[in-house]
């Protein structure tokens, strides 16, 4: 059995869609539980992917492909999973702040988070503080992620946190911020909970926030 788990995680790291799908089906046929396949096969593989990406051994398109395979496998597993079995690692609402249209970095972060098992609601770009607040109310995420690439739009992060306070829901959600001009010092100043310098760091921080 162990061997099958290992094959699944290795197949995932090797980004072999057909192989992983086949192995997942085989495992189900052999009576391995869906949650076991997920926890001890797929997620182990995604963990390796995350580490190798951080080390510069894996390229972003490879990581994206791995995460697609992860999701395709989940689709196979889903009918076999009990309600509440897939506890998403956590839920994240993410968006680029008002006045800012840069989204390449935010999209990467959002894809990596999904790869790590987070459920992500991506609001897009040019998101007003009030709209972030509404989205937090609607989706009740564990984490709110904000991206800003312009020094002129960074203050919107501060405003959003204030708006969360005013709405009385600041303590209901962890706030993560990033984007090229954003620094740890800025994040501390505006009272956000975490800063991520890149997609790999963002994923690590997010995991730590929900742990």
């Amino acid at each position, binding site marked *: 059995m162990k061997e099958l788990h290992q094959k699944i995680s290795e197949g995932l790291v090797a980004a072999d869609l057909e192989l992983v799908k086949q192995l997942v089906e085989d495992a189900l046929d052999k009576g391995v539980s869906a949650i076991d396949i997920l926890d001890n096969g797929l997620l182990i593989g995604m963990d390796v992917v995350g580490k190798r990406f951080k080390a510069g051994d894996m*390229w972003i398109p490879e990581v994206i492909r791995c995460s697609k395979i992860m999701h395709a496998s989940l689709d196979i597993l889903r009918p076999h999973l009990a309600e509440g079995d897939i506890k998403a690692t956590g839920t994240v609402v993410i968006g680029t702040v008002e006045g800012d*249209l840069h989204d390449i970095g935010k999209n990467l972060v959002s894809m990596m988070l999904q790869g790590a098992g987070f459920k992500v609601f991506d609001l897009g770009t040019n998101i007003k503080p009030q709209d972030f607040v509404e989205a937090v109310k609607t989706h009740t995420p564990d984490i709110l992620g904000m991206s800003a690439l312009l*020094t*002129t739009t960074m203050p919107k992060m501060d405003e959003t946190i204030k708006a969360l306070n005013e709405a009385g829901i600041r303590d209901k959600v962890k706030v993560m911020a990033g984007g*090229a*001009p954003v620094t740890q010092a800025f994040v501390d100043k505006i009272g956000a909970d975490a800063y991520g310098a*890149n*997609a790999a760091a963002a994923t690590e921080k997010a995991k730590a926030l929900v742990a």
Partner: protein
Amino acid sequence: MRRVSRSGIGTTAGFGLGAFSRDELDTIHYATLQILQDTGVKVMSEKALEIFHGGGASIERYEGYGIVKIPSYLVEECTFWAPRAIVYDARNPNDDYVAEPNRVGFTTFGGCINVIDPITRELRQATKKDCGDIARVCDYLDEICVIERSVNSTDAPDGTQSVHNLEAILKNTGKHIFIGADSPRALNVMTELAATCAGGKENFKKRPIFTVLVCPMSPLCLHDNTCDVIIESAMSGLGITVIPMALSGGTSTATLAGTLVTHNAEVLSSIVLAQLTKKGLPCTYGSSSTILDLRFGTSSIGSPEFGMINASIAKMAQYYRLPCWVGGGASDSKVPDIQSGYEFTLSATLSALAGGNILFGAGVLEQGLTFDYAKLVMDAEMIRMIQIAIKGIAITDEMLAMDVIHEVGPGGAYITHEHSLGVMRSQSQSRLFDRRCRDDWLELTRGESMRERAYETAIDILQSHSPIPLPDVVSEAMSEIVAEFEEEVKMTEKNTRSSRD
């Protein structure tokens, strides 16, 4: 001995880079026309949609935007309406810059948000003072032909930065300025500022001393602000430079050829919009495109691809016979070190050999985020070297100097010959780079690294150089315009906020 004239021999002036055959350029052009006609461009400004429509483009409307499909005749015609050769007028007429084909000049990278402080050497946010100071150093450096707003006044309030940037730059240089505008309204105020400097509106119209940088959003989008600034520039008769920042592998194909096509489509559609708004508006074919490093997720500007893409784009601009503004000389290094020197030289040389008219990249580090004074001064030294190199070796009777060779004969010395005396100053000259013998080097520099000497040079320039002055009344009038605008922005902020509540 008699050497009479030669008849019609083939000559090449200067070293250059072929890059593409005519057929290959045609292929890129036709591919672009196809994209513009069949795939279309997403346009998010109502005004711009109307202008495109009026010009003969077809519009498919969706919620909040339209897909504009531009027939090839319109593209061909509009690129032809843009003036062929441009002189970029300067407040100091001695600095008017002539962008005829293959004239290669240099300027800095633009829009950085951090600087390495030349005194404390600490990384900090760039301020309005840096924006002015860097312009002053660039005003002094002969190697810099026009001024780009190198850093943003990050200490100025939201929505007013571009106005503050321009004020700081105008007060510190007499050269032509390339600068972006936060909004059409900010552009109005910037025009007013520059007109005040240039001796009034009429004079400014005749000699606009700045050009507006506009930035389409790859892939194939023209955002409302981009469109509205293009339209406003055109109505005010201000030339534009279109600089898409396609990131190959992120916002354009991971293959560079495909990147050239969508990049081209983004520039040409912007030019169509500008020309339909005002026929004959000066348009500079620009680029800030590079690759998205697919290992680290960074927009790498120190990569060879940055040079390859920008050199290719210089060739595209020449194909359309438009002046061009392309990258060359940028770096991803975090400090002004050996990496930054190597990276500067590769892309700057490629773009220079390709004949780009204005190459931006000097002074920049860290994917375009950080500006460094020492790097600017060191880059200027290398720019001089590149400008010598691209001149090439002229094969003429005069340069062959056959008489001198005969005269000196086998085993003779040229250093004592009058001919050398006459020609010597055409040699390249190092100032910061060191070519002396070790002992002299040690005595003169105390073994100090070039980087240290470069910081010192920058500080010296800042202390001693005074750009062509502005009359006190003009300076005051400018400060007033800026203060009024700040007030105006504050009020509109307040109003929108209270109307929201």
